[in-house]
């Protein structure tokens, strides 16, 4: 494909340069057909990737209004092509949402380009609104056109792969007939739906409905979901910095005041092991400085002034994060990095490189998690470490023998941006735990092979220092003896049944927010 597209394009350029006008049209046809075939191949690949469940969501916090404006600019020429008018209507303020923006953009662009394709001298509209719903509000985006429309029979088939309204459509309008299938799958992957209503000769409306997940915790500045905001309300009021123009949505954007982060958590999780940061730098004053920057944030800081000590400490302490100076005498930072990455036990520890070179390092070499330039900026350092910590905290192990329940919980958590591992019984759970060491555990009690109680006992015995956040999900009425057995390591018990999924999600979020630094 590359060769067909590339050489035909080159020939076209050369034909233009040499004045061989009679060849240009034909070469253009080869080029256009090549592009079409490539699009078809890519769409088929996308679809089979979805079928094979190889597609993952990559949610981020975005402003939907900004996204829509951006899309509007992209589709304007496309819509104007057939004398259509494009209107973007944002009917209720949506504000920031937590969603896979790349996929959402792809879906909306697909719907709009379809609408533009099948409409002439008419209107294409995108209507955005927020629908009230529980547990989450719904983001509703309707793409409406005044185009050729479809019959009921055509509507039925419109989302099937490879089927456009009818065979002549492809001839007249082009396209691969896969865009809508892909868009629908993406919507479903996000926990939503894509539907269509249409009337022959009047127009069509495609409706995206996606639940609005509140953004999870990130480092430093994070969005506080309403249910958590109430918990911290007092602290927010005490904050003398007024929050400017809070978006009129469910979430408020707030810089979390330092006093709120530390003492609150320390009281809650007294006696728990703090997260360790290993600092490797040949410059003693720098070691001291970094220590003084990170310790008030609640981290345990280990220091090494040479490569050898650094590697030894890394092996002994298995720190959460390593910060590494690039320029060191004898063995430099890159060599230490190489040694770290070559050791299977240490390879997964995120490394922040620190160097005096002020030019931003191009790219992140060899699995470097972050990069900071010297002189060390306290805020940037703290934010970088906190970000890596948040990432480590986002792993959840779900141990549940019921396939449906397990899939459901996993899907909910994935949709919320968690890194989810699943196991069907205690033994499998133990094995997975040893490999991934997640912080959060969602645990069923009654299971074959090894039940939830046994798994917890084993984990506590084997890893007494691990700070696990356990949420038990059970259909069982727990006896006092059961509760005793769980006490100490279980953060929360959720009864299976109506609404339990919400509670699990909320609890996972909550334990993550109150987990120790």
């Amino acid at each position, binding site marked *: 494909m590359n060769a067909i597209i590339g050489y035909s394009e080159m020939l076209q350029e050369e034909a233009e340069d040499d004045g061989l006008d009679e060849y240009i049209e034909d070469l253009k046809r080869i080029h256009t057909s090549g592009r079409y075939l490539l699009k078809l191949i890519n769409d088929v690949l*996308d679809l089979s990737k979805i079928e094979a469940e190889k*597609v993952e969501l990559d949610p981020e916090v975005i402003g939907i209004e900004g996204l829509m404006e951006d899309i509007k600019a992209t589709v304007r020429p496309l819509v104007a092509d057939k004398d259509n008018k494009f209107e973007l209507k944002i009917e209720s303020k949506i504000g920031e949402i937590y969603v896979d923006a*790349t996929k959402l953009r792809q879906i909306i662009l697909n719907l709009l380009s379809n609408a533009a394709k099948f409409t002439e001298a008419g209107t294409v509209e995108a209507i955005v609104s927020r629908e009230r719903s529980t547990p989450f509000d719904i983001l509703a985006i309707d793409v409406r056109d005044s185009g050729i429309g479809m019959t009921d029979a055509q509507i039925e088939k419109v989302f099937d792969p490879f089927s456009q309204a009818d065979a002549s459509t492809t001839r007249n309008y082009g396209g691969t007939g896969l865009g809508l299938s892909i868009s629908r799958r993406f919507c479903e992957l996000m926990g939503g739906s894509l539907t269509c209503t249409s009337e022959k000769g009047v127009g069509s409306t495609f409706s995206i409905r996606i639940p609005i997940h509140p953004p999870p915790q990130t480092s430093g500045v994070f969005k506080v979901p309403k249910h958590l905001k109430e918990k911290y309300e007092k602290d927010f009021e005490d904050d003398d910095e007024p929050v400017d123009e809070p978006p009129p949505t469910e979430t408020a954007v707030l810089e979390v005041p330092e006093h709120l982060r530390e003492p609150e958590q320390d009281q809650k999780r007294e006696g728990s092991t703090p997260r360790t940061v290993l600092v490797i730098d040949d410059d003693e004053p720098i070691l001291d400085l970094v220590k003084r920057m990170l310790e008030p944030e609640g981290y345990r800081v280990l220091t090494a002034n040479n490569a050898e000590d650094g590697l030894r400490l890394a092996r002994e302490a298995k720190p959460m994060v390593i910060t590494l100076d690039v320029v060191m005498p004898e063995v430099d930072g890159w060599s230490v990095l190489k040694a770290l990455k070559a050791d299977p036990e240490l390879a997964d520890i995120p490394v922040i490189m620190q160097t005096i070179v002020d030019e931003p390092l191009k790219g992140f070499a060899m699995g470097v998690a972050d990069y900071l330039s010297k002189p060390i900026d306290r805020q940037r350092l703290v934010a970088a470490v906190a970000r890596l910590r948040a990432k480590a905290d986002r792993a959840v192990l779900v141990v549940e023998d019921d396939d449906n329940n397990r899939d459901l919980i996993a899907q909910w958590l994935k949709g919320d941006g968690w890194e989810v591992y699943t196991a069907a019984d205690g033994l499998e759970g133990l094995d997975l735990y040893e490999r991934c060491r997640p912080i959060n555990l969602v645990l069923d009690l009654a299971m074959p092979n090894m039940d939830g109680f046994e798994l917890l006992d084993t984990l506590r015995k084997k890893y007494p220092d691990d700070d696990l956040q356990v949420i038990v999900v059970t259909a069982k009425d727990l006896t006092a003896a059961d509760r005793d057995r769980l006490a100490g390591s279980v953060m929360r018990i959720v009864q299976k049944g109506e609404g339990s999924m919400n509670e699990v999600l909320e609890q996972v979020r909550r334990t993550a927010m109150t987990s120790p630094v």
Partner: protein
Amino acid sequence: MPVIMLVEDNEMNRDMLSRRLRKKGYEVLLAEDADEASERLNDHLPDLILMDINLPGKDGYEITRGLKADPRTARIPVIALTAHAMVGDREKAMAAGCDDYDSKPVDIKRLLGKIEALTG
């Protein structure tokens, strides 16, 4: 004019891209795989490397990680070229240390823009 090294195992892709770059005035060094790339790098350090990802033996990510870990080559910008732009390829390329990323078949204007941005 800057010197560009193209690491690409597919002969036609190599031919096309090198011809088009030379036409724009760049000097182009060619390598088919990791071994050839390191051989070329011994003689001459280019101003930029275009790195195909799907290579026999060591893939482009691996080669890039090696380049970025070597102080002699760490500063040479690398643009990764992947076949089908899938979500996540960009992240993978960046994680491997690449400075930019583009998908094949290349849009020559866009690629030239990226080359200029990194060599200019």
